[in-house]
C-alpha cells in the first residue's frame, strides 16, 4: 500500500455538549481520491476543518506524510501542503481572480511582484491541469463552476499536495460536476491526494478509490469503493436499511387540477426563459420536470406560483385562472389550494432569524386556527409546531429554536411540513431534497408519494435525475425554456440525459 498522506489518530472534538467527532481514526493513501460520506451533521466538515487548522481537536494526533504534525492555523496546514475548497467559497466577490489567488500568499509587502508571479503560475496550472480561467475576471461575474475552479487554483498556487473538497457539487450543475470530476482525476494522476466530502453516494461511486463513512461523529467504516455498493454505504450512513427508490403503486390520475397553456416568461434581463409551454397536472399524479439548472424551470415555478410576471399564456387552477401579472396575492393562491415549496428555502421559504414555530405557520399566520382575536394564538401555534415536528421528524425537536440553527435537511422539512399540512389540492415543489441527506430524502419522497395517493396533484422540479425518475409518474424534460419531451417513469437515464442536453430537439429540427 502506498504511504499514507494523512493519518488521523483518535481525534475528538466537542462544541459545547455536542460531540462532533469521537475517536476518529482515518488513513488516507497518497495519490488517491478518498471519499468521506455521512449525513448532514455527521461530523465530516468538522473533521476536515480540524485537518485544515480551522478548529483545534480536543485530543488526538495528525500525521502528514508519516510525520506528526501540529496544525494550529490554516497557515500550518498550507505549509504542510494541505489545501481546502470550502462548501461556501472563501472568495472575495468583488476581487479579481488574481487578487483572490494571491490573498494570504503574497510574496512581499507590495503587490506588483505577487501579481506577476501569480499570473505566470496560473498560466502554468492552466497548461498542466486544464484549469482555464481569466485571471482578471471579477469573481462575482463568474459562474459558480468557475468560482470553484478559482478555489482549486488558490490551493494549488499555495503548493497543495492534499486537496480537501467539502461538498463540492452542491452548487454545480451536472455538467459542471462532471467537469470537476475530470479535473480531480487529473490531479490524482499528477500524484495529488484528493479528499472528497459529500453526501451524494453516486459521486462517491463514480470517482473515489476508497470511501470512509461517518455517522453521528464516529467513523463507522472504510471501504474500497469498487468492493462496496451504494446500498451498503447508505445503510452504513444511516444505520439502517434505506430505500433508495421509494416504492409506489400506479398513479390514478383524476381531474385536471392545474392547466398551463402557452406560457411564456421572461427573466429580469428580458431573456425568454419559458417559451410557450403547455401541460396539465392532474389530481393523484406526480409530474416531474427534469432539466439542467437554468433552462427555465425556476421561472416556470415562479410564474405558476404567481411571483413572476408572465408575458403570455394562461394558468388555470381548478378551472379558474391565476393572475399572471406577477402581482398575484400568494395568500389568495394558498386559499385556493395551491401550496408552493420554493427552490431557495433560505431566501424565499424561511425567515432564518425566526423561531421554528413562527416559520412553521409563515404565510398561514392569518388562518383563524392560529389567531385569537387580532392576536396570534401562541399556544395553538406551538401545539401545531410540535405536531409537525413529530410528524416530520424535525430535529432538534425544539419549536423555540432559531431556524438558522437547524441543518439544511431539517429546514427543508420545516417548509415541507408547513405546505403539506395545509392539505393543498396542488403542491408545487422546487428541488425537494437539495442539500438534504439520504435519510431525509427517503422521508420526503415518501411524504410526496403519500400526498399523491391522497389524490393531490404534485409538480416536482429537480435537477437530480434520480429523484425525478424515482418520484414521477410522468416526466417532462425542459431544455432552453421548452418542454422537449415527455416520458414515463421507466425512461432510462441516458434517454433523459440526451433530452436534457437538447440533442433530440436539434435532430428533429434538421
Amino acid at each position: 500500500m502506498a504511504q499514507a498522506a494523512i493519518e488521523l489518530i483518535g481525534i475528538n472534538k466537542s462544541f459545547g455538549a455536542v460531540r462532533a467527532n469521537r475517536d476518529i481514526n482515518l488513513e488516507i493513501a497518497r495519490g488517491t481520491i478518498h471519499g468521506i460520506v455521512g449525513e448532514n451533521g455527521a461530523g465530516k466538515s468538522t473533521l476536515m476543518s480540524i485537518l485544515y487548522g480551522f478548529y483545534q481537536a480536543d485530543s488526538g494526533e495528525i500525521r502528514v506524510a508519516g510525520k506528526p504534525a501540529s496544525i494550529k492555523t490554516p497557515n500550518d496546514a498550507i505549509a504542510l501542503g494541505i489545501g481546502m475548497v470550502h462548501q461556501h467559497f472563501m472568495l472575495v466577490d468583488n476581487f479579481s481572480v488574481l487578487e483572490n489567488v494571491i490573498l494570504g500568499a503574497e510574496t512581499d509587502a507590495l503587490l506588483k511582484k505577487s501579481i506577476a508571479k501569480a499570473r505566470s503560475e496560473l498560466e502554468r496550472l492552466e497548461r498542466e491541469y486544464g484549469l482555464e480561467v481569466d485571471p482578471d475576471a471579477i469573481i462575482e461575474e463568474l459562474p459558480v463552476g468557475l468560482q470553484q475552479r478559482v478555489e482549486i487554483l488558490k490551493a494549488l498556487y499555495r503548493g497543495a499536495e492534499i486537496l480537501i473538497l467539502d461538498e463540492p457539487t452542491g452548487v454545480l450543475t451536472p455538467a459542471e460536476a462532471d467537469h470537476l470530476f475530470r479535473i480531480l482525476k487529473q490531479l490524482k494522476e499528477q500524484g495529488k491526494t484528493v479528499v472528497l466530502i459529500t453526501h451524494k453516494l453516486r459521486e462517491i461511486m463514480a470517482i473515489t478509490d476508497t470511501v470512509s463513512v461517518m455517522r453521528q461523529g464516529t467513523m463507522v467504516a472504510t471501504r474500497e469503493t469498487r468492493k462496496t455498493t451504494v446500498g451498503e454505504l447508505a445503510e452504513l450512513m444511516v444505520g439502517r436499511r434505506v430505500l433508495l427508490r421509494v416504492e409506489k403503486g400506479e398513479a390514478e390520475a383524476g381531474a385536471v387540477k392545474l392547466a398551463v397553456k402557452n406560457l411564456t416568461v421572461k427573466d429580469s434581463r428580458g431573456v425568454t426563459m419559458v417559451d410557450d409551454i403547455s401541460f396539465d397536472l392532474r389530481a393523484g399524479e406526480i409530474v416531474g420536470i427534469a432539466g439542467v439548472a437554468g433552462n427555465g424551470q425556476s421561472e416556470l415555478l415562479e410564474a405558476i406560483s404567481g411571483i413572476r410576471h408572465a408575458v403570455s399564456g394562461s394558468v388555470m387552477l381548478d378551472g379558474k385562472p391565476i393572475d399572471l401579472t406577477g402581482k398575484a396575492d400568494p395568500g389568495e393562491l394558498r386559499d385556493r389550494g395551491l401550496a408552493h415549496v420554493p427552490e431557495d428555502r433560505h431566501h424565499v421559504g424561511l425567515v432564518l432569524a425566526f423561531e421554528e414555530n413562527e416559520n412553521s405557520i409563515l404565510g398561514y399566520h392569518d388562518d383563524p386556527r392560529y389567531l385569537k382575536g387580532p392576536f396570534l394564538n401562541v399556544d395553538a401555534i406551538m401545539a401545531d409546531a410540535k405536531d409537525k415536528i413529530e410528524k416530520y421528524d424535525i430535529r432538534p425537536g425544539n419549536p423555540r429554536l432559531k431556524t438558522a440553527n437547524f441543518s439544511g435537511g431539517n429546514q427543508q422539512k420545516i417548509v415541507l411540513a408547513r405546505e403539506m399540512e395545509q392539505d393543498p389540492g396542488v403542491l408545487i415543489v422546487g428541488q425537494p431534497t437539495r442539500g438534504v441527506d439520504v435519510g431525509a430524502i427517503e422521508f420526503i419522497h415518501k411524504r410526496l408519494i403519500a400526498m399523491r395517493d391522497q389524490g393531490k396533484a404534485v409538480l416536482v422540479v429537480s435537477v437530480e435525475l434520480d429523484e425525478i425518475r424515482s418520484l414521477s409518474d410522468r416526466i417532462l424534460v425542459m431544455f432552453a425554456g421548452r418542454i422537449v419531451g415527455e416520458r414515463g417513469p421507466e425512461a432510462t437515464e441516458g434517454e433523459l440525459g440526451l433530452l436534457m442536453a437538447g440533442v433530440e430537439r436539434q435532430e428533429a429540427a434538421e
Partner: protein
Amino acid sequence: MDVFIAIVQILDSTIRLSVPLLLACLAGLYSERAGIFDIGLEGKMLVGAFAGAAAASVFHSALLGLGMAILISVAFAMVHGFASITHRGNQIVSGVAINFIAAGSTIILGQAWFQQGGRTPALQPGERFDAIVWPGAEAVRDVPIIGPIYAELISGHSILVYLAFLMVPFTWWVLFRTRFGLRLRAVGENPAAVDTAGISVAWLRYRALICTGILTGVAGAYLSMVQNGGFVKDMTAGKGYIALAALIFAKWKPVNAMFACLLFGFLDAAAIRLQGSPLPLIGKVPVQFMQALPYILTVILLAGFIGKAIPPRAGGVPYVKER
C-alpha cells in the same frame, strides 16, 4: 477682479474647511474598508483636538501636541476595537459610546486641568502649526490670476493641510498597491476568506483601526492647533458625521473622498461667506439652511444621483468562525 478675489478667498477657505473632513473621511475609509463601522470618528477627533491642544500648551511644542493627539485618538480607536473586534460587540453602540465619552471627558478634564470653562489655554506661536509660505509667494502676489492662486490657494497653509491632501494618493496606493491594502479590503468583504487564507482577521482589523486613530488624531490636532488657537468644547461640531456622509458619497474610494470633502468644505465656506448677504434671485437665505446644506445634499445625492453606494459587504458584522 473683486469677484475673482472673492472666489479665490472662498476656495482658500474651502481647502481649510475640508481638511478635517478629509482626514476624518480617510480615517473612516480605513476602518470601514476593513469591515468596522466607525460612527466614533467624531469622538476620536474631539479627544485628538483636546489632547493636542493640552499637550502643546503644557509642553510648549506643536509636535508633541500632534503626537499626543494621535496617541490618545489611537487609544480610543483601540477601545472601539476591543469592544467590536475582540468582544464582537455592536459597532454602532461602541462608536456612539466613544462619542459620548469624548464629549464628556474633554470638558471635565479641560476644566480640571486648566480652569477655563473646558477650554485649553490659547496656544502661543511655536505651540501651533503655522502657515508655510512658499518661496516667491509674496513676490508673485500681484501677478494677475496666477498670483492670488499661488499665494492664497497653494501657499500659506499649515503642514497638516498638505499632509491631508498627500494622504489621498497615499491611501489609494496603500489600498490598491500593497499587501496590507489587499488584505484590508478583503477582510471588509469576506473575513472568512481572509481567515482561511491563514491571516488573522482580528489583527488585521486592529491595524486598520490604528490607521483610523492616527488620522482622526491628526484631524483633531488640525482643529485645535491650526484652525483654532486652542481647544473649545464640542469643537468638532458634527464634522465626524459629515465625514461619514462624505465616505458613503465617495463610495469608499480615496480620490472620491477628497472631492466629496472639498464639496462639503465649499458649501461650508460659501455658507460663511454668504451669511447675511442676499443671494441674487433668491434673496436672503437663513444661515441654518446653509449649514444644513451638506446634509440635505447627502440625502439628495444618495437618494439617486450617485447610483448605488455599496458598502463593504462584511461591514458592521463581527467575525465569528462558522460552525
